[in-house]
């Protein structure tokens, strides 16, 4: 069964029709990449999945996004619960200006998922190990998260998401502020994480999509042009626009 089913989904910023009738089925425990030129709506689509878009004024949507069979846009859906289940990592690492430990523990404590210190400690350690950050920072957990390098900060942000036990992780151009070596390491992390989580990544970087994803969606001007296995999109796409874009003729 598809983990995320997007059905006839439309999104408007006031009068601007930003997403036009999107239909995609995103499979479980795979990495799905969303690519396309700037302004094509790929980030908007990603942010619609956990409804973090809701905080923007003047947005309205039609259609459905079903996660595990239930529509997240139904009335009475607890958005906070949804967002806990569908974590997101943003373009720029955005750790809170508090300690490394407190960053990871934040969601646990505030959402009252865990309050016993031993449980919180354990989860923090596990989450930091999952993002391969533990060994580097285990002796400075009480230091400010802003003292870390950008790559470490981005890993920390992923750990912060993992700590509240989501099933889906959305990544919005997670490497765009990192250097190529750091990018490579975050990509390796994504490949490792896909065993446990369903991952959707928006990226500008074609090679990245090719390297990390199983499926790729190509978007253009708010529309989904093509969605298929990554290999097919990059070697033998069925639409001409896709071919033009992945071969670098435009975009």
């Amino acid at each position, binding site marked *: 069964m598809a983990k995320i089913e997007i059905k006839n989904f439309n999104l408007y910023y006031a009068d601007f029709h930003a997403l036009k009738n999107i239909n995609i089925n995103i499979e479980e425990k795979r990495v799905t990449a969303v690519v396309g030129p700037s302004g094509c709506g790929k980030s908007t689509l990603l942010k619609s999945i956990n409804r973090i878009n809701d905080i923007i004024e003047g947005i309205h949507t039609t259609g459905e996004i079903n996660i595990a069979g239930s529509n997240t846009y139904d009335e009475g859906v607890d958005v906070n619960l949804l967002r806990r289940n569908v974590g997101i990592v943003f373009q720029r690492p955005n750790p*809170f200006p508090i300690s490394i430990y407190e960053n990871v523990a934040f969601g646990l404590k505030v959402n009252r998922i865990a309050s016993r210190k031993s449980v919180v400690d354990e989860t923090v350690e596990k989450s930091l190990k999952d993002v391969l950050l533990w060994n580097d920072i285990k002796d400075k957990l009480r230091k400010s998260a802003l003292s870390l390098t950008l790559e470490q900060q981005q890993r920390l942000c992923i750990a912060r998401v993992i700590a509240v036990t989501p099933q889906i992780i959305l990544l919005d151009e997670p490497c765009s502020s990192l250097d190529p070596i750091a990018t490579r390491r975050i990509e390796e992390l994504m490949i490792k994480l896909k065993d446990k989580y369903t991952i959707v990544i928006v990226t500008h970087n074609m090679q990245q999509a090719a390297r990390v994803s199983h499926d790729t969606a190509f978007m253009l001007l708010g529309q989904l042009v093509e969605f298929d296995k990554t290999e097919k999109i990059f070697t033998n796409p069925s639409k001409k626009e896709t071919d033009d874009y992945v071969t670098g003729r435009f975009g």
Partner: protein
Amino acid sequence: MIKFNPKLSQKLSYLLLCVAASLAIVPVLVIMFIIIKNGASAISWEFLTSMPKSGMRKGGILPAILGTLSIVSCAVAITLPIGVCAAIYLNEYAKNNLLTRIIKLAIVNLAGVPSVVYGLFGLGIFVTLLKLGVSIIAGALTLSIMELPVIITTSREALNSVPYSFREASLSLGVSRWQTIRHIVLPNALPGILTGAILSIARISGETAPILLTAAAFYVPHLPHSILDQVMALPYHLYIISTQIPNMPENVVYGTALVLLMIVLTMSCIAIVARIYFRKRRKW
């Protein structure tokens, strides 16, 4: 047409601007100098801690100091929570609709009302209509209305300076809006809010017109007992002793001004130190 040498005109305009900016320091220094020179001799432990004697020409100004402190602390206790809550609403919740625009317009207008009008308003509403009488509480309520727009504006700026990405990150972890405000936005905005609050304390400590008709008395022979008491207040006391009492020793007048000035300057210094301290600690 006369052509100026560009280098010369550059120097001239630099000089002009520099002098204009430096002029701002002059009045401060002159005021400080005159007040300290004439008033320092009046300052003593007794002056600060005893009741006025012989028609206020001798003795101390303790009731006026306590009166000002009690009016100001009551005013802050009223205006700070309301102002901060209003700022949170406007900055974090309010949609850009008619109500919000009316509230914002009201705040701007409230800030522009002359202080004597607040005094008359306080007299009409708190003293007469609500029958609070001329009292600490009536004066404090009047001052708190006057200070509300300042508190709201400075608090809003402080809230606004907290990066949007912090809110986004917190909400995306499934943390509710209010919890995000409580755990992320407010702690990071607190330094700015406090600085604004301290500065407004400094400002209202010296206000005369609003308390003239609502709280201050010419002379009260005892220290304030309750918030329904009339009190003496430093700015009003200063006005009285410098205009209404014949044969007033000059150094007592200047000494009183010095005490008022010191209270205001101490507050401002605390605000400045707090701002420097928090700015250093801020890491984004």
